[in-house]
């Protein structure tokens, strides 16, 4: 199976206190921020790797995993990390962050899918920076493919994927015919969440995303990484989403102690106005 996995880098939440908003609030100043892959995208990559291997022999890839990201040259770190964990090749669409919105990325991904003709696109359900949760759904629409969002389990069948989605009150199972689009949720990396046709059903993965050892990190430097221009993929590059203003959340006020439940209720009602 050939799988395309879109990846996005996001600001490392451990360094969130470094985020600065210049006066006027027109932009966010990203200078000095540290970046890490969007966790849901890492889970998507792990799911794609599991779908293209026999879990018992993870170093042999029984299919192809292509990773793609949008951004400046520095984003190649995200791609190299993915190549080190097992992806076969990478594509970087050269773009600045402020040239992109969900609509443009979905259209550009469609152009890449038309060219690469993967059997499936597996991607994170959303990026943890903007939390938009749009691109998977828009891309499926553009492609006219079946989609299964928020996947917690995936099982490969002949010409289809059996996808378990956690919904209120249980799990709904969808059978999507390939080619198909799947967006994944966090439980997709549990030990028994994903099975390719080669992997035995009693096989258990380690919980979480796999680690890359140093030899794989070094080998990843030699794996193919292509660069594409955004304009080659999308004709209309006008932003559909415009950000009008950014502001930092108000700083937290010091707490107070109340003497009894009656005072607590009064204050919740009259001051906090939450009851």
């Amino acid at each position, binding site marked *: 199976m050939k799988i395309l996995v879109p990846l996005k880098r996001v600001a490392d939440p451990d360094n969130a206190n470094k985020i600065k908003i210049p006066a006027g609030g027109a932009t966010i100043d990203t200078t000095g921020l540290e970046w*890490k892959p969007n966790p849901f995208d890492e889970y998507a990559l792990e799911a794609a790797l599991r779908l293209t291997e026999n879990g018992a022999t993870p170093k042999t890839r029984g299919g192809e995993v292509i990773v793609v990201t949008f951004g400046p040259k520095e984003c190649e*770190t995200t791609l*190299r*990390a993915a190549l*080190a964990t097992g992806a076969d090749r990478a594509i970087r669409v050269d773009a600045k962050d402020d040239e992109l919105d969900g609509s443009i990325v979905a259209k550009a991904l469609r152009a890449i899918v038309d060219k690469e003709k993967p059997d499936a696109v597996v991607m994170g359900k959303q990026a943890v920076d903007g939390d938009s949760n749009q691109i998977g759904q828009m891309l499926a629409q553009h492609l006219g493919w079946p989609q299964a969002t928020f996947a917690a389990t995936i099982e490969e069948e002949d010409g289809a994927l059996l996808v378990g989605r956690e919904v209120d009150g249980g799990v709904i199972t969808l059978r999507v015919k390939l080619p198909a689009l799947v967006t994944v949720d966090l439980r997709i990396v549990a030990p028994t969440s994903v099975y390719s046709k080669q992997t035995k059903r009693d096989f258990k993965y*380690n919980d*979480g*995303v796999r*680690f*890359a*050892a*140093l*030899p*794989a*990190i*070094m080998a990843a*430097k030699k794996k193919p990484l292509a660069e594409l221009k955004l304009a080659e993929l999308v004709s209309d590059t006008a932003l559909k989403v415009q950000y009008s203003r950014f502001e930092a959340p108000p700083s937290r006020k*010091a707490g107070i102690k109340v003497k009894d439940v009656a005072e607590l209720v009064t204050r919740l009602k009259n001051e906090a106005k939450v009851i």
Partner: protein
Amino acid sequence: MTYLFEDDSHAALRASAKRFAEAHIAPHARAWEEAGLFPRELYSKLAEAGLHGASYPEAHGGGGGDLGHGLVIAEELILAGKSVGTVVGLGSHGIALPPILAAGTAAQRARFVPRVVSGELIAALAITEPGAGSDVAGLRTTARRDGEHYVVDGTKTFITSGTRADLVTVAVRTGGPGHAGVSMLVVERGTPGFTVGKKLDKMGWWASDTAELVFEGCRVPASNLIGDENLGFLLIMQNFATERIFLAGNCVAIAELAYREARAYVRSREAFGKPLAAFQVVRHKLADMASRIAAARALTGEVVTRHLRGEPVPALAAMAKNTATDMCSFVCDQAVQLFGGAGYMRESVVERLYRDARLYPIGGGTREIMNEIICKVEGY
């Protein structure tokens, strides 16, 4: 801040080590420190993640990296795992294996190294004795040749990972007095006559076990001799140089962690109606801590680079160790001070780091011995 020698490969390993430590060390850090031991399975888990032997050759199951890779992995494990004892226990192979890799035969390397790198076996280095610490050339554990064996008699002490070690690289006396009579021998667990005397209670590094090892008529196959007989002293000295770089790196990591803990605390703790960080005296303390960490990191990074270039670095390694240990003691002390009463409580990480830090001007060669080395190389 990272070391100047780092490239993408170090960044990738840092990310892995951080993720590993957050998942597998941090949740248990306090419990393991209090229990004085971490579970043995952690070695193989670390190995599975490619973080146990990253600096050893691929031919022996390692990652094919160098000292710098090992150093940054240890740093991230300390920063994210917050249990220095666990990390140094996991890392005792870093002083036990290099003599085997440097001077061992192909058969010895193949026999000992891969199973340690895979996490199956635990390796320790045994040099210090009850009667000989800094004075390595005065060691008294003897190894008498008897046919195809050496018969080892003596006691070693302060041995990191000693209670569980499956193979111990031991400094023994095979010849006359002084440094010219010293050899290195690998003694395996289960060899009759080799016993663990007792587990030692320490000031810090609690999660790492430290032991006294006893050899009584212990018959070790002569094929376990590392390098040539009576040429072990040089091996020990070469090994010390990299150990000291590693200890300097530990200090940078411990201080960085103490600094981060203190920085977060002074932002949240309020006194006199405002956060501690709003007081200039507090901010200046942090600025001093950050400056000293940066200086020690710069020197430690420089000695790594020079070592990897093939330059002899015994004096510079000693300078880096002293600079980093002084810095670390200072930073941890200041961190405890910023925490106030909370810093004196066992619940706070800085209390533990303060105790851990005290080892470094002693272990791997004392501060005074470092100065002796510097004096010798400088020629006075």
